[in-house]
C-alpha cells in the first residue's frame, strides 16, 4: 500500500481503537476500509451501522468519497434517508480488489458528501468524522 494510505489507516485505528476495522487492498496501492458498529443517533431505527470507503493511492491529497452504510438504514420518522443518500449500491467494487476474496460485497446506501472547500488537507479520518456527524444530524 502507498505510504499515505498506510498512514491514513493508522490514524483511523488510533481514532477508533475499539472498533473492528477491516482492510482490503486495491490494485493500485489504495485500500477499501470497513469500520463495523459505528453508533447512529436518534433519527434512525438502527443503533449502529458499518461504514465503508475507498482510500485511493493518492491519499491524503485525494478526497475520500463516497461513503457507504448499511442498506437497511431507516429513519424513526419513516422519511427516506434524504438528499445525498442513495440506495441500491454495493461496497466494495469487487473488480478493484487486489485479492478478489478479501472483502465480500455488501448491499449499501451511498452517502455522497463532497469536500468543496479545502481549508486544510482533509485526511480520511477527518472526512469520516464529518460524514458521520452529517449522517447523525440529518
Amino acid at each position, binding site marked *: 500500500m502507498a505510504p499515505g494510505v498506510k498512514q491514513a489507516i493508522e490514524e483511523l485505528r488510533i481514532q477508533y481503537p475499539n472498533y473492528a476495522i477491516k482492510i482490503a487492498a486495491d490494485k*493500485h496501492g489504495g485500500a477499501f476500509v470497513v469500520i463495523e458498529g459505528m453508533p447512529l443517533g436518534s433519527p434512525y431505527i438502527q443503533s449502529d451501522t458499518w461504514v465503508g470507503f475507498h482510500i485511493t*493511492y493518492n491519499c491524503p491529497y485525494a478526497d475520500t468519497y463516497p461513503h457507504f452504510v448499511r442498506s437497511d438504514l431507516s429513519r424513526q420518522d419513516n422519511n427516506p434517508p434524504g438528499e445525498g443518500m442513495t440506495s441500491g449500491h454495493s461496497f466494495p467494487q469487487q473488480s478493484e480488489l487486489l485479492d478478489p476474496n478479501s472483502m465480500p460485497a455488501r448491499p449499501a446506501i451511498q452517502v455522497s458528501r463532497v469536500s468543496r472547500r479545502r481549508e486544510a488537507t482533509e485526511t480520511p479520518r477527518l472526512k469520516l468524522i464529518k460524514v458521520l456527524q452529517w449522517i447523525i444530524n440529518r
Partner: protein
Amino acid sequence: MDHQSLATSKYRLIVPGGLFSRLHYHLFPGDGDEHGAVIAAGMAKMPDGSINLLARYLYLAEDGKDYVPGKRGYRMLKAEFIRSCIFTCRDEKLVYLAVHNHGGEDSVGFSSDDLNSHERGYPALLDIAAGMPVGALVFARNAIAGDIWLPNGKRVALESAKVLGTSRKILTPAPVLCKVSVDPAYDRQTRLFGDAGQDILRDTTIGIIGLGGVGAIIAEYLARLGVGNFVLIDPQKIEISNFPRIVGATRWDCFAFFQKEFWPSPVRSLAKFLSKPKVKIAARVIRQANKNANIKPIIADTQSKEAVEALIGCDYLFLAADSMSARLIFNQIVHQYYIPGVQIGSKISHEEKSGDLTAVFSVVRPVNPEKGCLWCNQLINPLKLQEEAQSEKELKANKYLDDSNVIAPSVITLNAVGAAHATHDFLLFITGLMSPQASNDYARYMMLERKSEIVEPRRDEYCSECGTASGSRLGRGDQVPLTLKY
C-alpha cells in the same frame, strides 16, 4: 544509492534564488572579510548518473558567535553551531555542507588550511551523518568550489552550482571555456541572446506534459528556438475533435475519412485505434524544425515510472495537461527535485442560462521552489484526484448525480497566448536575461477585456509540498516517494 556509483558521479548543487541571495549577502556584505554558514541539502540521482545536492536549509553563522577566529586557520565554525546543523542533517537525512567565502570574483579554490581542516573534522562528521555525505563549499563572488566527502571515504569535487532565480545562473570553480557554435539559421534570434545563449538552448532538456492544444504549440516554439532535448509525455491519441488545435497534425493522423458516420462501427473503431499518438505528432513537428533534436516520446501519463524518471532528468518542465494527477506529480517534482516549471491553461466559460460568454482567459503559472505551489493555491482538486484514481467501473457505480462529462471549450488562438508567454519566460530564464526584478507571479490574460492581471500565489509554511517546515517535500530529492499509482 550504492557507494560505488556515488563515488563516480558528477555532483552539482542546486540553490533556489532567494536562499542564494541571502547567502550571498551574508558572505559578501562589502567588508571584504570571510563569513560562514551551513547548507543542509537533499540528494537526488539523475537519470544520467549525476548527483544533485538540493539546498534546503540555510544556517547563517553569526560573526563572533558561530564563526570565530580559528585555532589553525583564519576562521572556523564553532562546535556548537556545527553540532546543531549536523544533527539536523542526520535526523532529516540531508547532506551537511559547511560554507565560507574567499575574496576574488570569477574563480575560487580551497586553501591548504581549508583542506587540512576537512581532513581533521570530516571523518567524525561522516560518523554522525549516518550514511549521508558531508562536505564544504567555498564561494567567490561569481564562483564556487566544493569538496564532498562520501560515506565510503572517497572524496569528489563539486562540478558546478545552479542558482534558480528569475534567471538561471551557473557557478563553477573557474570560468569554463566554451567553444560556441554558430548556426546562421539562428542568426536573427541570437541577436537577442547571443550564440552562447543558442548553445544553452541546444544543451537544455525540456519536459512537456500534455501534447494537446497548448503542449503542441510549446513543442513547436521550443524546437524552432533550437532547444536540443525533449521529453514528451501524453497517453492520448489524436482525435477528429482536437486535430485542428494540434500544430502539425493532419486529417490522416486521425484517419478522419474512416471515422465518418457512414462507415460501419468496426471500421471507425479501427480508425480510432490507428490514430497517431499526440507525442508522435509533436516529435514529427520538432524534427521538422530541428533535425538534431533528441526526443523521448512517452505514450503514458505522469503515473508511469518511465515518465517520472525522464522528467526528473529535465532542466525545465511545461505542464500543459488537464488532469489533476499530472498537476500533483508536476508540483511534487518541481519542489522535491528543484526543477523549475510552468503550468499553462486556458478557460472559456458561459453564463448557464443565457449562454453568454463570461470569461475567456489564458493563465501562465510559474512554479518554482520558492513560490507557493499548486497545492497551496488550491489548484489541485481533491475530488478530481480521487475520481482519476478510480476505475471507470467504480466511477460509474458511484456517480451520485447523473452528470455527463463536461467538454471544455478550446481555441488555438487562446492556447497560443499562454504557450507564447510561457516559452518566452523560459527563454529569458534559461539564457540569464530575465530582469532580477521581474515578477514570478501568476499571470492571467483576459481576452474579452484585453487586459492582463498578475496574482501573487500564497505560500503555506506548513505545506506538505513546498513548505519550509520539516516534513515537507521541499528539496528532499530521492528521500521521499512521489505519489504514484502502484
